[in-house]
């Protein structure tokens, strides 16, 4: 006779542990257990059969794998926790004795990461364990970056020490610097939540979210201890990842950090990237700040200027009227004043000139030949990062935006693009303004434009980056209503709604027909409304008759009359209708109208009827096939259909909204 098997001794019951049991086994407190779980990446499991696993009657229990917990038993961190606990005990005991000096001594030994931002332990081994290869670490970087960027923008509180924030900020900056140097940034997206960035490092796509530079509101009950635990881990992770990334491209890590510049809000400019080789120190030090690189920049500058002049001359010779046209389209610049008007050939010329072959897919080249100037109202940090990551060397901004700009002088002649995010205000025209010689020397008023410079809204940068080509700046001119900013991360699936495609390309046959019929019906009714009242009467009649015929059809279908009949039935009905309409028209003494108009509509209607018939047949076929499925498969099938239908319903809604919108636009245009 075999041994009697007891419940909870073998099988699943052995494989799982409840949280309480796990905590007991590890002999630590629940917060410590939480920390350990977060760092070691241990998460609860859902057993296949909860009843077999749980020994208690309560339904909601968290289960962990027994193996996971056993693996925690040998964790060196466990000892650190215990030591810490002992130390705390000592402190409290000393305080209880009233022995303040002792307590102070113990307190000195106690690590207070919530104050110093630095614990006594390191998480290096945990990171190595969790991510055996570097690529594994990169794969998991999404949450890490989002979290650190968020913390870098948080206000410091008692729960979030300032040191932690500073470290987060530095790590993030260092990572950004890496992306700038390696040109790893691929896409970016301005969302209502913040700015999404996507970078590609060693073939891994990393997507993270950076909040807008505002004070973050903290709502609801948020446990910053939990977040802090995550951040602690992520900081260590990003530190090592940065080290590897930097050394991978021959840079020294950590980069030189200039505290004074940072205090002046230089942000990215506070770091000086150095090569590993000390011999080539001079060259290797890449000053990210372009203040130092002025000689270089100015070296380039005259060339650009010369090229601009050349093109301008050419253009002047060639066709000034063409340029005029282009200029007229650009924005309302032509309305500004004469002095600006004179330079109009320059503006588009300057625009056309530096544009490289727009097909260049190299992200390092996209903005490499431009000099940008950021207006006061634009978000400097994301723009600076994204422009630099896509090859721009010289970015200037207003003094207000902080240290580290290439130039703070808006009138710098080397500026090719200015990013503006303010509404257009009609400036007061200065009559004595002489266009020719006041090009750059004169201080322009707030809303005046420098000729030879392209003015764009910030979205231009993002759209250009996402499409990997320079978008035409006319669409993004200041004050213009912007084209929709689309997410570059959406992978369109077959049959899914895609806002980039025209509506006709993706709507179903039925929708198209419905829409057209709707249109024409509307148009017709509009026509008829112009006519006499009888017309409307007639129209109503037609409508009702139509309804009748449909009812009949339905009846027929119910009655089981063959599908073959239906079509003919419908036709008959419509023929009858027509006859009736004719009769009525005769009685009322009106000419038989709207027949010609109807012809088109009729064909459409019949087409719709055909379509309906077809869909009905298909539905029947489906029904037949479905009946032959086994129960399991049928359930699965129905589930899949449900989700598909839901999605398609959403798409349908979007399409109908778009149609409506387009119609409105057409109307407003007309």
């Amino acid at each position, binding site marked *: 006779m075999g041994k009697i098997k007891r419940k909870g001794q073998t099988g699943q019951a052995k494989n799982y542990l409840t949280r309480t049991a796990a905590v007991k086994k590890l002999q630590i407190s629940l917060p410590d257990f939480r920390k350990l779980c*977060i760092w070691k990446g241990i998460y*609860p*499991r*859902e057993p296949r059969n909860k009843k077999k696993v749980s020994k208690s009657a309560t339904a909601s229990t*968290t289960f962990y*794998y027994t193996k996971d917990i056993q693996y925690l038993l040998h964790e060196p961190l466990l000892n650190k926790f215990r030591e810490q606990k002992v130390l705390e005990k000592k402190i409290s005991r000393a305080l209880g004795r009233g022995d303040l000096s002792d307590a102070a001594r113990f307190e*000195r030994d106690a690590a207070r990461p919530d104050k110093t931002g*630095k614990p006594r332990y390191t998480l290096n081994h945990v990171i*190595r364990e969790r991510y055996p*290869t*570097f690529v594994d*670490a990169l*794969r998991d970087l*999404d*949450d890490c970056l*989002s*979290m650190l960027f*968020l913390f870098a923008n948080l206000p410091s509180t008692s729960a979030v020490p300032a040191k932690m924030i500073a470290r987060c900020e530095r790590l993030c900056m260092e990572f950004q610097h890496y992306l700038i140097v390696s040109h790893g940034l691929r896409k970016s*997206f*301005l*969302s*209502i*939540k913040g700015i999404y960035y996507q970078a590609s490092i060693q073939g891994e796509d990393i997507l993270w979210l950076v*909040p*807008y530079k505002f004070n*973050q*509101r*903290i709502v609801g009950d948020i*446990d910053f201890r*939990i977040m802090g635990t*995550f951040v602690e881990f992520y900081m260590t992770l990003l*530190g090592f990842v*940065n*080290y590897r990334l930097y050394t991978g491209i021959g840079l020294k890590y*950590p980069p030189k950090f200039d505290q004074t510049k940072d205090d002046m809000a230089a942000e990215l400019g506070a770091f000086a990237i150095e090569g590993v080789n000390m011999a080539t120190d001079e060259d290797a030090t890449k000053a990210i700040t372009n203040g130092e690189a002025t000689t270089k920049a100015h070296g380039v500058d005259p060339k650009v200027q010369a090229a601009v002049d050349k093109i301008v001359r050419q253009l002047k010779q060639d066709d000034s009227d063409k340029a005029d046209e282009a200029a007229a389209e650009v924005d309302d610049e032509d309305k500004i004043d004469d002095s600006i008007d004179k330079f109009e050939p320059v503006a588009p010329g300057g625009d056309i000139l530096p544009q490289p072959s727009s097909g260049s897919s190299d992200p390092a080249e996209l903005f490499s030949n431009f000099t940008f100037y950021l207006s006061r109202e*634009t978000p400097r940090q994301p723009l600076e990062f994204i422009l630099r990551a896509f090859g721009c060397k010289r970015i200037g901004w207003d003094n207000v935006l902080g240290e580290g700009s290439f130039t703070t002088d808006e009138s710098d002649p080397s500026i090719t693009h200015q990013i503006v995010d303010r509404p257009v205000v009609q400036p007061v025209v200065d009559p004595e303004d002489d266009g020719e010689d006041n090009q750059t020397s004169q201080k322009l008023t707030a809303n005046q434009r420098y000729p030879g410079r392209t003015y764009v809204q910030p*979205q231009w940068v993002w759209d250009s980056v996402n499409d990997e080509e320079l978008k035409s700046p006319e669409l993004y001119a200041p004050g213009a209503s*912007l084209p*929709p*900013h*689309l*997410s570059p991360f*959406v992978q369109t699936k077959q049959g899914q709604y895609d806002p980039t495609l025209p509506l006709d390309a993706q709507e179903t046959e039925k929708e198209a027909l419905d829409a057209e019929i709707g249109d024409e019906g509307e148009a017709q009714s509009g026509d008829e409304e112009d006519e006499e009242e009888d017309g409307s009467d007639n129209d109503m009649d037609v409508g009702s008759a139509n309804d009748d015929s449909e009812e009949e059809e339905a009846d027929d279908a119910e009655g*089981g*009359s063959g599908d073959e009949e239906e079509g003919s039935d419908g036709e008959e009905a419509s023929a009858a209708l027509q006859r009736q309409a004719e009769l009525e028209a005769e009685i009322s003494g009106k000419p038989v109208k709207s027949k010609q108009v109807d012809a088109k509509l009729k064909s459409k209607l019949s087409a719709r009827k055909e379509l309906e018939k077809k869909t009905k047949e298909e539905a029947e*076929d*489906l*029904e*037949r096939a479905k*009946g*032959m*499925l086994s*129960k399991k498969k049928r359930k699965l*099938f129905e589930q*899949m*259909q449900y989700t598909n239908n839901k999605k398609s319903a959403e798409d349908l809604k979007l*399409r109908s*909204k*778009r149609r409506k*919108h387009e119609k409105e636009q057409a109307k407003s245009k007309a």
Partner: protein
Amino acid sequence: MAPRMVDKKRKAPAAATPEPQSDDEFQDGVFEGALSQSESDDEDFEIAVSDDDDESESDGEGSGDDNGDEDDGFLSDDIPSDDEAISKGMKDVEITEPGVDPKVEEKEDENLGYKTEKDANGGIRYVYEEIDPVYDSDDSDAQGPENTIGDIPLSFYDSYPHIGYDINGKKIMRPAAGDALQNLLDSIEVPKGWTGLTDINTGNPLNLTDEELELVRRVQMGLVPGDLHDPYPDTVEYFTGIEEKMPLSSAPEPKRRFLPSKNEAKQIMKLVRAIREGRILPYKPPEERQREEEEQEEVHFDLWQNEEAQEPNPMHIPAPKLPPPGYDLSYNPPQEYLPTKEEREEWEKTDPEEREKEYVPQKYDALRKVPAWDDLVKSRFERCMDLYLAPRVRKNRLNIDPNSLLPKLPSPSELKPFPTVTQTIFRGHVGRVRSVAIDPSGTTVASGGDDGTVRVWELLTGRQIWSVKLSSDEPVNAVRWRPTKDSFILAAAAGEDVFLMIPSHASVTPTLDQASRDILAAGFGYATNGQQHGEPGKEPAAKWARPGARLEDEGVLIRITVRSQVKVINWHRRGDHFTTVSPSGQRSSVAIHTLSKHMTQIPFRKLSGLAQTAAFHPLRPLFFVATQRTIRCYDLQKLELVKVCQPGAKWISSFDIHPGGDNLIVGSYDKRLLWHDLDLSTRPYKTMRFHSEAIRTVRYHRGGLPLFADASDDGTVQIFHGKVPSDQLENPTIVPVKMLKGHKVVNKLGVLDLDWHPREPWCVSAGADGTIRLWM
């Protein structure tokens, strides 16, 4: 004790002074006592004088002691006492040598220190005086005259002149007591240290010395009595630092003395290593150290220097990434993504936890107008919670086209002919039509319904040609034609009665009519005989009788009355037998009637479960009975159970046997249609579910077409193509071809019965809406 302490104290400061001195001083007192004793012993009158001397002596001693106490280094006092002691010692010798001429002794003594005596031979014999070994220096036991009387009160000697004996057995004389006046004076003028006690050893009054008084005082004061002794004496050097000229050992110096120590080198190396590794740091004040620690950068190195790709643990489920933002999350989304007013209101109304999306798409016409998103921290926090608290489950999502799950069915148009449309609607019944049957020739349809009538209709035109009302209150539950063409007999069941009738009809020739009548009448004679043969005690299973003149005129010729309401009639293929089933009839629920003998038999004494329906096998002598759950097949010849089919349905409503005899379809009230292959298994070969309501009837086509149909309460009839191949190994093909819709659902009842045309692909169905429809 006190004098010994004094000793020590004396010793301590003057280490260099020769030892015997102090001892001598001590002896000094002792000898004094002895002297006085001897004096008192010899001359009593001198006692007072000697007493005085003694006193003065003792006083002097006391003062000398005092001096010693006060200035330890000053020893001049001791020296004269020493001399005194020597002289006294001389006296002592004098006393202890009786019998010797003192003068001679003195003279000799002065000369040589020995005496000359005459020995036995007359020669001179030098007698040296005894050497005093001065044991006292070492012998602490050799104290002065000790009173040896032991522990007895001194009062015992009150009447004697002595107070005890010394160690030599000599009497210790009582010291002279002063006269009363002296005593009085003494008691008035209490000398220092007076105790009023008598020293037991000497008999003198016992006075305390100054030291002892001081000690007593300190004890009384609760002070440490040890003021007298020095708690921190200087070390006594037992060994001098002077190097000896001669070594203790002549062994040569060992080699190790000249080699550097290995052990020390080891210890030093340990320290060096610790310093190099930074384990030992130069001392810094804690504040500075703390500050430094805080400033210290985190150490970074290449963590993945020798990375090795590991197989991911199969049980490990990586956290799913957050989905990338869609179009609707843009700050400037396309117009169509913006919610309408209703949608926004609905979103705002729903609970934040139930919202499908945590945000509402919004449009800002410039980037500078975009505000911070309120829920960012919260959503990040929720993500954190998910990461460590949410159980992860791997769910296999089938990413396939759902249509690929569907079986490939041949197009129905390839499987024609089958009925598709309503050809004729037979109207006339009041209430439900419960049963319908097409006659073997295929020209007429018989039907029975709730109104208690049996009607016969022309099949194609739908004209009613015959009708009879069998019962006024009972519905007609079943009508079935006798399946042979040589007769025109219809069986109908109403209540407990089964009627056999011959409808009059234009196509019924007189010969056919007569033949039918003969068949029905044939049993009457037999029946009477048979009844006579039957056991008289038992009630017959059924009564065969003529229904009465009215019905007979109409063409109803026989009435068979069974015990309970009959629901089902099924004929044997030859037409001689038919079976009726009355589910409520307990033991007699299934009955087999023999037409030629007008006989009714009840084949089952006991049935497991309620009998639902029964049928004869189309080819072999087998009989099938369906109970709620199972279908049992009995051999009629051997009278035994052959097979039990278990379709798995909860409640079987009806079944039909394929004309080939090897397949069975079963309809059940739980909406399922089951195809059984009798040879294959007792379990269904195929289960189909086409109806949303219970299936009432299932029926095969019997005219050679591979068709079957079921009728359901949802008002539909489903036509199937069901081909049974001639090859045994092949599976039958079942294809649903058409769903016939037309009957209305009345009181949750749709189509109640169904029958196929014997040759054509037509079928008729009886509906709860009171109509019969011919489908073709």
